[in-house]
């Protein structure tokens, strides 16, 4: 069956700086050489600054492959008033070919193109430099901050290069975060047991309404099962939980299905979060998804960290429901809250993350970014 990705893009631009790269060669093979438009400048150069809703929409269908000259590797800065886990991001491109109504990229990206960087070897060199000094630190590195880690992997094959590199740093953890089911390209690869493939999941009811162009819940779960069977660590993010009248039934069924397919040992972490976004993002979301969306029509209020969130009591109710559903099955399930306030932690766990024994390693502060020699930045 032909990959839907082949016909996803209206235009495929490759910058001259990427000529000779493996990614450019793969793009020519994947899309056909005739579809490649070689350019010496960034296309759509007139589009500067914040994108309009229609420009953002279009950017998902305009692929641009180019060399990246900046720093690939950054520490996630977390955000004010939220409990933060230690996490680093490796950005190998930006923008996503999928289209979730709540996606934070809508208030973050200002490029009119979905960009993929052709020089992954430079990214690996940055990682190698870090390895020289900090191979023994329990560093978590994710590639899914400004793009989905795997949704374009059938084109980029970046996962394969990264898995290979991470064999040399067994104490580090590589995290692919995805809403796709593209795992076939690395399933047979040998690895050091430090590769996490994680899925952001929601009930199919929510996926069908809000996570456009993503894999169905069942396909994500099947992909996760395949990964677990091949020794990859897997994780799930029940995030963002989206309130709707039948949320208890739908999230209950989702959790039951997870518990049916996996054991607590197979899931070292299940993070839970609720819908949140920057207030300014509401304009773009309303324009792109209308007011029928569960997200745009949600009851959201300004929280202390400046984001719009559900009322604290609603969040507490949702988080407690999830935690209790897992705990009723087994106390061994390791559930934690992502990007949440201390109030949510206290209400759900009667403790803050650094005081939850099972989670302590995850939230133990690392040396500051300067000491680590990496850039501090990114989003959230």
């Amino acid at each position, binding site marked *: 069956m032909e990959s839907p990705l082949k016909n996803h893009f209206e235009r495929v631009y490759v910058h001259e700086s990427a000529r000779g790269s493996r990614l450019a060669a793969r793009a020519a093979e994947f899309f056909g050489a005739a579809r490649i438009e070689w350019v010496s400048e960034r296309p759509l150069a007139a*589009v*500067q*600054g914040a994108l*309009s*809703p*229609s*420009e953002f929409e279009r950017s998902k269908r305009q692929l641009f492959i180019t060399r990246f000259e900046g720093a690939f590797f950054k520490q996630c800065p977390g955000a004010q008033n939220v409990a933060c886990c230690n996490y680093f991001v490796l950005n190998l491109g930006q923008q996503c070919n999928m289209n979730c109504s709540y996606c934070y990229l809508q208030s973050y990206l200002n490029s009119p193109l979905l960009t993929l960087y052709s020089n992954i070897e430079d990214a690996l060199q940055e990682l190698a430099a870090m390895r020289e000094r900090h191979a023994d630190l329990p560093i978590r590195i994710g590639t899914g901050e400004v793009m989905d880690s795997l949704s374009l992997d059938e084109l980029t094959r970046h996962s394969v290069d990264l898995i290979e590199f991470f064999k040399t740093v067994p104490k580090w953890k590589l995290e692919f975060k995805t809403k796709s089911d593209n795992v076939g390209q690395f399933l047979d690869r040998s690895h050091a047991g430090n590769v996490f493939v994680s899925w952001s999941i929601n009930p199919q009811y929510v996926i069908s309404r809000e996570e456009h162009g993503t894999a169905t819940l069942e396909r994500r779960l099947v992909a996760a099962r395949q990964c677990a069977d091949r020794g990859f660590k897997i994780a799930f993010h029940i995030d963002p939980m989206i309130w709707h009248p039948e949320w208890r039934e739908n999230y209950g069924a989702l959790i039951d299905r997870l518990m049916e397919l996996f054991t607590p040992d197979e899931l070292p972490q299940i993070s839970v979060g609720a819908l949140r976004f920057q207030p300014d993002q509401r*304009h773009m979301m*309303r*324009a792109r998804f*209308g*007011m*029928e969306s569960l997200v745009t*029509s949600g*009851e*959201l*209020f*300004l*929280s*202390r960290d400046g984001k719009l*969130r*559900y*009322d*604290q*009591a*609603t*969040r507490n109710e949702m988080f407690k429901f999830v935690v209790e559903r897992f705990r009723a099955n087994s106390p061994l399930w390791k559930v934690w809250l992502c990007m949440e306030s201390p*109030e949510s932690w206290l209400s759900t766990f009667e403790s803050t993350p650094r005081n939850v024994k099972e989670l302590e390693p995850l939230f133990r502060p690392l040396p500051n970014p300067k000491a680590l020699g990496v850039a501090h930045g990114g989003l959230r």
Partner: protein
Amino acid sequence: MVLIPVSQCAKSLDFGPSKPLPQALPPFAVRDGERAFLVSGFDRTDGDAVVLVGQIHELLSALYPSLTAPETARLAQQLGESLGFELRDAWLSLQGLRASDELVSLLAKVASSPRLFQDWVAAKGISLRELTALTLASGPAVDGFCIDLARSPASKAQGVAILELWCELAAMKTAPAAVQLSNPEAALKELQALRSPRTSARDTEAAARLKTIAWPAHTQARWVRQGDQAGIEIKFHLYSELDLERQLQGLTKVREHLSKDLWNRH
């Protein structure tokens, strides 16, 4: 200096600027091929206009360096209709605006809104960004609401919030038929309650429960929402250490009721 009789100039760029050209100044005109367009002093009917030389969009930008949101919308409309979208977009670009589909749609919406509303928007200094919700709603009810809002004593912040809430509700087909805009604070609360019915009902219930609790004498307690958190605001005055002791004892007695009747239900 080249002059042209005002009577020979087209007035299709008359966007109704809020400040009329001082009588002491001559009106200006620009040429586009054979045609001449008046670009200021639109109220003049006789006399001559000074013909400016240059690109129309650049001259307009120089003549009107800071327009209100409705003026921007009206001039964009007039430019597009009279001289084409390319020139309109070039002028918008000089205003720091990119002519995206959404902006063009918003400009059209603002330009076609009731003039009373436009004048209110201009007087309050409301920006185009603050008006984006207007594109969500359509139909005669919107115009009626805009006129009512313009006639209300709402402040800028209240007005912007009321407008956005009402437009969202209209798009969700739950906008109320009438809103008491003579009291903007009450109107805002009413619309917020309609926009967040579940949370609002929860707050109302908590506030009612709070009233059933026997608070210590001279203590005022009310349920207050602050963003995504809601809780109890307690007010009392202390005049001595004894007062403090009594209040603490009184609040300790209330604690059990709070646990039973409020925290565990809310």
